[in-house]
């Protein structure tokens, strides 16, 4: 009985972790393919730079905190840093 549940747990570990990794690997592949197709065949005239001005994903854990100020500070710092180089 005791080994039974440990066995079940190990099974869950193997199949669960396996599925997560496989699924996300497939997602990586299809996402890269999708991006390439769109960039080549359906390019957009105007693009947006992700690294700096885009606001980060806000609050998926329902904790909505304003990151914009932080981003603004960081962006400014990066610019200054680059200028300095």
């Amino acid at each position, binding site marked *: 009985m005791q080994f039974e549940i*440990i066995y079940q*747990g190990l099974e869950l570990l193997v199949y669960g972790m396996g599925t997560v990794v496989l699924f996300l690997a497939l997602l990586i592949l299809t996402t890269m393919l*999708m991006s390439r197709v769109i960039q080549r065949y359906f390019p957009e005239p105007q693009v947006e730079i992700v690294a700096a001005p885009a606001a980060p994903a806000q609050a998926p*854990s329902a904790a909505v905190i304003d990151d914009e100020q932080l981003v603004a500070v960081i962006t400014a710092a990066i610019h200054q840093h680059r200028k300095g180089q």
Partner: protein
Amino acid sequence: MENLMTLWGSSGLAQMEVGQGIMILIGLLLLFLAIRKGFEPLLLLPIGFGGILANIPGAGLAYSALENALHQGDAVLLAEIASYLGVSAGSGIESLMKAFYSAAPTAQLAVESVVSAAGYSDGMLHSFYTVAIASGVAPLVIFMGVGAMTDFGPLLANPKTLFLGAAAQFGIFATVIGAVGLTAIGWMDFSIADAAAIGIIGGADGPTAIYVSSVLAPDLLGAIAVAAYSYMALVPLIQPPIMRALTTKRERAIEMTQLRAVSKREKVVFPLLLLILVALLLPAAAPLLGMFCFGNLMKECGVVERLSDTVQNSLINITTIFLGLSVGSKLVADKFLDSSTLGILGLGIVAFAIGTASGVLMAKLMNLLSRVPLNPLIGSAGVSAVPMAARVSNKVGLEANPHNFLLMHAMGPNVAGVIGSAVAAGVMISLVGS
């Protein structure tokens, strides 16, 4: 005089049990953490308040009509109920409830009719729980709102960070092993479904944890939700030591190349791509990830802004309030004050720690295999706990190198972690559920 006795007998002081007193203090502690320490206040404030309400002696706000009748009814009523269920009236509330759940539907109907005729009704929090959580709707609506607040830009600019989000889910499954291990050595008594629900705490995602435990282990939901949100708030304390222990100063100082521009069109297609993959491979994750993708598509498509606004504001706020109060209903003393709660709290923090470590180690592994430099600190963001974990990566990175801005780079694994734990949730429900 009789009325005076009725009043006193119905007062809280006369009926208070030790457990209820303790739970009220725990509820006040949660409020203190939420208000003064800023621990995920949007959820922990309603949960803590709900926990206090649930433990008001004699009010029975967290009980069903039948439970209220069994707690407060006189001997005659109990005898009548017991006779319908075919058990002895003196066999205790718990065994009467078990007899009810396994009784024939017509017997259940008869009991409900008797209870209602005697004037007992579902407690307020029990009703909230039934509508919001037992139906599964509140976590799904929250997930839709989260989707509408998520920007997949950083992830699309560097899709390989999805691997970090995958690796960090190892915390979930390692915790499952921990839970079954504690059971095997006899310290705890978790079923495999309980273990799976406890593991999901390591997903560092509140609505996912609530959704999974509402399906697999409703009795543990209170402890699991409290653990999940508390540890999410504690991420800035839990993660940095682990991150520093597993990396060299040099690794932490690695600067990453700027993320490429991502087009609007990619952002619109991505939620659909994810949805199709889910549909083809993992239907059990379809409710959670379906609503998540729906929210994200509403945000990115640009043609339904009024819907997207409402989803991100009034709808998610209303749902959050009732979700929190409903979770609070599971903090009722006779369900929460149990050795299993301590086990859950302990396992939960282990889950967070292992998830953090796995993310960092995966980043180091990827550095070995690829030329593009990856700062291993962003690996810890893979546990999700958006956006707290990404900020922690940024902060620890700045300590090592004041020119090192990891925030946007860490947002990729951060949102990947949300997807990863929803996938893990789907696997668990499909393997363990029912």
